């Protein structure tokens, strides 16, 4: 290798080492992807208010839980359901687990083209396919199935059901016309341009959908992690969550 | 004059080779039809193949000794080998080929450059060389490594008739001026007569006749 070539590699490696510096005094938050928009805004407010730096890592709650179980150095974990939070119970910093938010199910349809007004309308022949999250894996799908079973519609609707890998994919099926309707979270419908909400499942009728959060035991920035979790319960954060369509739960550490 | 003491047993698949020759020669020719084992014999001397039994000794230098189960590593043999397809390194230009095995003998390098008329070729890519040019470059590459023995496999095969005389002249000068013993594979009588003092006639892996070229190849 020529001297110039070696130099080039040296520069490259140097650049890389610079990039790969470990995180210092930052709060790394692993959160369910349905929270990405609102949490990005809230994290910025938190940074301004506290001087801490926040890194956000969004993904499917079950993947995030698995990463924590493998020992990923996460400071705060916010799950889209209790099951995934229960899986990491050994990694929860004692006394920090808290139920933060609620969400509701909603029926999404293509904007302006549907005669679906109530859940029973899903039986109409004009609804040929109904997209939901995969009820075997995706929390939103589990909730959708529970709800349809409670209404006694599951058996009749089952031939129409298209299981999707995520809530967003269920919505994409409606956007593209592959499905006439989807059952997703109320907060997701707003994010998709081509769809509108036909029906929001009243909190009393639907399954209880709760987003719990916690400080992870292995954190190196316990103070920062705790103050971030606390910030999510301030009036400022609550109003942002509400605007995004989430319900907020009164602080109740368990 | 070099003393050749070859006692070789070699088998590969259905082909078996048995050579037994003790002779003195400056240039030893291996003569015979294709498939008679000439090239295999060269490769055995070079060390690219290993005999099952026997010995390969040239001027007292043991290259292979079946009794002691000793085979000198190829790179220590100091044998210059120019195969029929010359095998110039395709990813190097002529100069890098010629200098590949150079042992620092500047006088020899200069002499070879003149003898083989290499200067105009030095910057060329080997793909652009003619058959005769390749042969000259391969010869220079082998000789630059200061070999104690030179093996040539049909050096004239890829050279057109008009240029053969020049190669023969160059080989004669290598023989006379560098005084390196040569083993030479050929199947044209005139060529053998012009260069080799002793000829071994081979057929089917066996030595059919051996002796002074003039008497073996009338």
């Amino acid at each position, binding site marked *: 290798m020529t001297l110039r070539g070696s130099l080039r590699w040296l520069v*490259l490696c140097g650049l890389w080492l610079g990039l790969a510096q470990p995180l210092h005094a930052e709060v790394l938050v692993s959160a369910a992807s349905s929270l990405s928009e609102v949490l990005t805004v809230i994290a910025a407010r938190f940074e301004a208010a506290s001087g801490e730096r926040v890194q956000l890592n969004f993904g499917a709650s079950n993947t995030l839980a698995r990463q924590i179980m*493998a020992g990923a150095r996460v400071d705060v974990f916010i799950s889209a359901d209790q099951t995934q939070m229960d899986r990491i119970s050994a990694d929860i910093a004692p006394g920090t687990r808290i139920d933060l938010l609620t969400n509701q199910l909603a029926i999404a349809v293509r904007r302006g083209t549907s005669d679906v007004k109530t859940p029973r309308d899903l039986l109409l022949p004009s609804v040929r396919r109904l997209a939901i999250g995969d009820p075997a894996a995706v929390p939103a799908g589990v909730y959708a199935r529970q709800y349809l079973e409670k209404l006694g519609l599951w058996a009749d609707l089952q031939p129409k059901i298209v299981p999707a890998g995520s809530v967003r994919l269920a919505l994409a099926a409606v956007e593209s016309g592959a499905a006439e309707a989807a059952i997703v979270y109320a907060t997701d419908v707003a994010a998709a341009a081509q769809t509108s909400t036909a029906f929001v499942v009243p909190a009393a009728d639907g399954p209880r959908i709760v987003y719990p959060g916690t400080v992870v035991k292995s954190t190196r920035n316990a103070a920062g992690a705790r103050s971030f979790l606390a910030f999510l319960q301030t009036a400022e954060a609550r109003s942002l969550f509400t605007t995004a369509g989430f319900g907020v739960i009164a602080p109740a550490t368990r | 004059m070099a003393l050749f003491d070859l006692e070789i047993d070699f088998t590969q698949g259905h082909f078996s080779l048995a050579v037994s020759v003790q002779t003195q020669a400056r240039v030893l020719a291996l003569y015979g039809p294709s498939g008679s084992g000439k090239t295999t014999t060269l490769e055995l001397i070079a060390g690219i193949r290993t005999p099952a039994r026997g010995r390969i000794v040239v001027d007292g230098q043991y290259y292979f000794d079946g009794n002691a189960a000793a085979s000198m590593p190829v790179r220590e043999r100091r044998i210059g080998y120019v195969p029929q397809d010359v095998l110039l390194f395709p990813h190097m230009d002529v100069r890098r080929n010629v200098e590949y095995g150079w042992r620092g003998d500047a006088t020899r390098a200069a002499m070879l450059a003149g003898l083989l008329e290499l200067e105009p070729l030095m910057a060329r890519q080997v793909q652009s060389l003619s058959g005769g040019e390749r042969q000259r470059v391969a010869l220079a590459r082998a000789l630059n490594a200061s070999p104690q023995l030179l093996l040539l496999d049909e050096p004239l095969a890829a050279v057109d008739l008009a240029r053969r005389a020049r190669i023969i002249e160059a080989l004669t000068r290598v023989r006379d001026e560098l005084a390196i013993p040569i083993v030479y594979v050929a199947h044209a009588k005139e060529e053998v007569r012009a260069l080799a003092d002793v000829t071994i006639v081979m057929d089917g892996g066996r030595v059919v006749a051996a002796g002074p070229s003039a008497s073996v190849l009338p």
Partner: protein
Amino acid sequence: MSPEIREIALFTSLAALVATVVMLIPGVGLAWLLARRPFPGRSIVETLVSLPLVMPPVATGLVLLWLLGRRGPVGRVLERIGIEIVFTPTAVVIAMAVMGLPLLVRTARVGFEQNTHRFEAIAETLGAGPWRVFTSVTLPLASRHIAAGALLGFSRALGEFGATIVLAGSIPGRTRTIAVGIYSFTETGRDADALALLGVSVALAFVAVLASNRIAGTAS
């Protein structure tokens, strides 16, 4: 192009480049070993190397996560010397390198399987030792295949998704690559940004394929 998109594109290209450099030495070594040195357990090594090619990338990511996580057999040792992998740019490089390696090995191996033994023998008659024979003859004669393999590995690294998101997560400004970014952006309704990244990825793929065609062209 927004600064965020540009940063993701730059980071991904750099990470893929580093991953290619990282996989080059073990990749060429393995290719040579598999092509030239029959050894006991060769088929097992061969299978292991090719595994990421046939396994779902997410599964490869899970295996890496299990190995390199702080509680994993390798991660535990690394933690003791102060190195953490999961959720770092290094994790991105490792995921990319592991996924790209089989392509490099399989392509480079063909280069070493060419019949160059006689060239090597000639080099030996000229006094070259094993290392010189390898570096001056074997390696250059396989260089075109190695280059093509490296480019394939690089392209694979550029598009790597499944293993990356499991091992490195999707942290903006830190581990978010083009592929992970496209996924995250579509997941969160940022379709315009996803589209911009898609454009970048098409452009990069175009350049990579063009380069590999040029290498293939000079080979014939």
